């Protein structure tokens, strides 16, 4: 069985889709009065690139056995994934309005039993890479050719279970498994960059740690990129494909900006989650609408 690549999508179109996705995130969370902002926005360019430029998937047949798998291990960023799945055609964009409401298919954290296109439930951090390793191991054992992608947050890397999976993926030579790390450098409270608060060290959790070296030492193939540079992301995906057959899993260390794309949410831990006011929504719509005019209403 051979893999078919997603249709290559141009950078301008990816930018438009990412802006639309960001708008849906901030608008949906404001309407639902619940959900996360910073993480979904930092990961948006990566998510859009995966779903519109790399994953071999069919929204009309979400359970296609030959499909590539994607696991959002940082499950609190569910609304980011839902926005991209809606744009990709898994369900109507209008359904985003049901997010976090009773009876919705769009739960606060991804639920594989409910949402078309969600390959693994997630929400308790640190578990997705193990699940992805299991899928990749099964694919090899069954002789199936799909690729498994797992997106993790940098805060999530503090969970020990991640490193159990990192070890296992190398041992089982899972070159059909790729981890994408959204390195936005901020957590809900742990490490904000704030000049007016010096009670304790609030630097980036991985500052002073050579993550590239750590993964290399674990036997992984490492690619470091700017997670907002669509061309760099595209190149990284190409290199992942080239690594198949190498016996090495690949990690893409993607440097991102938390809250990327909306000026008042960028670079602050205070928008890890948050509800935009009508004025803030209007501001976000104006900012994002410049890229995808007509959709931010």
């Amino acid at each position: 069985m051979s893999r078919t690549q997603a249709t290559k999508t141009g950078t301008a179109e990816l930018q438009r889709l990412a802006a639309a996705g960001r708008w849906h995130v901030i608008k949906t969370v404001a309407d639902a009065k619940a959900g996360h902002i910073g993480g979904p926005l930092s990961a948006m360019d990566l998510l859009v690139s995966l779903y519109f430029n790399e994953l071999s998937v069919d929204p009309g047949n979400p359970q296609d056995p030959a499909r590539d798998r994607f696991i959002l291990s940082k499950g609190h960023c569910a609304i980011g994934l839902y926005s991209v799945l809606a744009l990709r055609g898994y369900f109507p964009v209008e359904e985003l309005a049901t997010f976090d409401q009773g009876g919705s298919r769009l739960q606060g954290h991804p639920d594989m039993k409910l949402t078309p296109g969600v390959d693994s439930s997630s929400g308790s951090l640190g578990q997705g890479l193990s699940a992805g390793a299991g899928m990749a191991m099964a694919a090899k054992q069954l002789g199936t050719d799909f690729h498994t992608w797992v997106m993790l947050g940098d805060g999530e890397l503090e969970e020990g279970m991640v490193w159990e999976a990192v070890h296992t993926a190398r041992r089982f030579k899972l070159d059909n498994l790729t981890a994408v790390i959204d390195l936005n450098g901020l957590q809900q409270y742990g490490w904000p960059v704030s000049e007016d608060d010096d009670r304790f060290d609030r630097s980036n959790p991985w500052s002073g740690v050579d993550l590239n070296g750590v993964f290399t030492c674990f036997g992984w193939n490492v690619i470091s990129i700017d997670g907002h540079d669509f061309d760099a992301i595209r190149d990284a995906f190409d290199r992942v494909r080239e690594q198949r057959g190498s016996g090495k899993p690949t990690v893409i260390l993607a440097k991102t900006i938390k809250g990327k794309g909306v000026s008042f949410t960028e670079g602050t831990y205070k928008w890890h989650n948050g509800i935009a006011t009508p004025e803030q929504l209007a501001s976000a719509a104006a900012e994002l609408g410049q890229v995808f005019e007509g959709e931010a209403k």
Partner: protein
Amino acid sequence: MKAQRDVWGQTLVDLARTDSRVAVVDGDLATSTKADLFADAFPDRFFEIGIAEQNMVGVAFGLSTLGFRPWLSTFGVFLTHRALDPIRMLVSQTGAPVKIAASYSGLLNGSSGKTHQDIEDLAIMRAMPGMTVIAPADAIEAEAAIRWAADHDGPVYLRLARDAVSDIFSPGHAFTPGTVHVLREGNDALLVSTGVQSSRVMDAAALLAEEGIEARVVHVPCLKPVDEAALLSALSGPAPIFTIEEHSIIGGLGGLVSELVTSTTLGKTVTRLGLADAWSESAPNSYLLDKYGLSPARVAGQVRHALADD
């Protein structure tokens, strides 16, 4: 008379000959759990993850999404405690057909002491929505439960004991979830037990009979689901109820029976025998069974004493 662990490994080998979905995910204890029998026979479907129990659960879940029905193989304590969170999120919440083979459960774990004794597993797993919780009495019932679980399209927690106990059931016994078994009739006391403790309770009932006390012995192999009507029927009559389990008296079989009795008009008290909110210690099995009131003589003594107080 066989040990449940030997039956576990061999039964999986038998099942795997005709069922390609059967797989084993091991945590570096295959020689103890007897998963090594499976590893020798089906190395392609044996996944040695190493000493990483949370990861084991995640990998088993991942395998299950591709059609495997993986069995987790390690000591129960490392699954129900260390790997509880992935069991909850990836297995229970999704209903994945992952089978948790909790080897070396309960109090008697060689002489490893309280670190390795799992005396809270039934309470934990019973509270997990959608989890089938089975504690077979002997090797025969263990084999029947394994064969049932292999075909069950959902998660199963199977509590297995390390050492052999006297057989209660006859070869060919079939497992049906929810069923309760009245192993012995009697009107003076109602002894309710689960897992391998039922074998000791049968011995206790024989000791009581020598003193003229006839006890009904009710074995509950499946703590969830349970056929409540059948269990209530078995608990009916004037005799006082005792629950006896190799487990904490909190939340396990004693909890189940107490909840059931107090939610009906049965109007009876339940005396719960087991570990009374206490940690155990390293010691020979006979010492531990006596100390915690689970040996046949100590069970009989506690029942006799309680009846005398009435």
